[in-house]
């Protein structure tokens, strides 16, 4: 019994460590990337992965916390991509230019084809 709990604890701390490392990477990427779109994709993807990993790890540390942390994780999984997509579309429509070394602009190509 205690061995199972010990294994769960070790697994939980490993998950929390991975998650907090990804969160730190996300914030560094937010600082160092050159324009809005790059920052957005770096930060959103890494943050979502890191947050899900930490929440799962906390659930493993104490199994009574698992349902609530799964609810929070589901909520992050639903809202983070929606917020990022709405922001990306809004800043494109607002007229913020891409970085000068960006090469792909699918949205503009589609507009020209129509």
């Amino acid at each position: 019994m205690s061995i199972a709990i010990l294994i769960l604890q070790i697994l939980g701390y490993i998950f929390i460590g991975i998650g907090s490392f990804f969160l730190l990477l996300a914030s560094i990427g937010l600082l160092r990337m050159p324009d809005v779109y790059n920052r957005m994709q770096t930060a959103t993807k890494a943050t979502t992965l890191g947050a899900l990993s930490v929440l799962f790890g906390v659930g493993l540390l104490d199994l009574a916390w698992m349902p609530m942390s799964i609810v929070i994780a589901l909520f992050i999984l639903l809202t983070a991509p929606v917020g990022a997509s709405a922001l990306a579309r809004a800043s494109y429509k607002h007229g913020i230019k891409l970085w000068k070394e960006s090469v792909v602009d699918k949205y503009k190509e589609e507009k020209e084809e129509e």
Partner: protein
Amino acid sequence: MKRIVAAILAILIFIVLALAFVKIPFGNINLSDYHYYNPITDKQTSDSVPQHYLVDGKKDTGSTNIVTAVVVDYRGFDTLGEVTVLFLAATGVGSIMYIFEKEKRRKVRRANAVVETASQLLFGFIVLFGAYIFVHGHLTPGGGFPGGAVIASAFLLLYLAYPRFHAEHKTLNVAESLAGLTFVIAGLLGLLISGSFLYNFLPFGVPTYLFSAGIIPVIYVAVGVKVGSELTGIVDAMMGVRE
């Protein structure tokens, strides 16, 4: 020059405030030497005020969350006043925004399909969570005011995603009036039964269970519905578009 003077003034005010705050004891001071007169037992007791609330609060009110016990039970009349102030503020916003009614016939751009679908999916979840916050006000942190704000933000999400959406004014008014009436009737029943306004006349039950703490959950549900409908009315007055 003006900015430098302003900065120096701000720093001086900060220093004076900090010097004043150093003298005030926060946190760990032992107040057990403080004596106060207890009118019920008719003698001086040596219990301190925070000890009184923390120890006797659960016995007096049956509520697990002491903050809720203070807000709804010990200081229930103040909460009625706060709800009235919020109602007056909502009325003021509505009457000011009525002047701009003509301007609302404007063209608005539709939202992204992603935002529309996500707001449909999340609306029920957010309303459910707001209801959870104010129903569990006597067990977990939260209560009527945050729960009402969460419900209003669910409606705000719909207003943002669908520019043509607007909530029914009649339903909002009926919900708000019923909630306010429930609060006042609960207080008057206490007055009728034991002679003091908002007396906790229902049985306390077992603490940490949902049906416990007497009339505290009833009043918090009423406050939650009232705050939610008032804030939704404010949001509707500002963002709604009439056809």
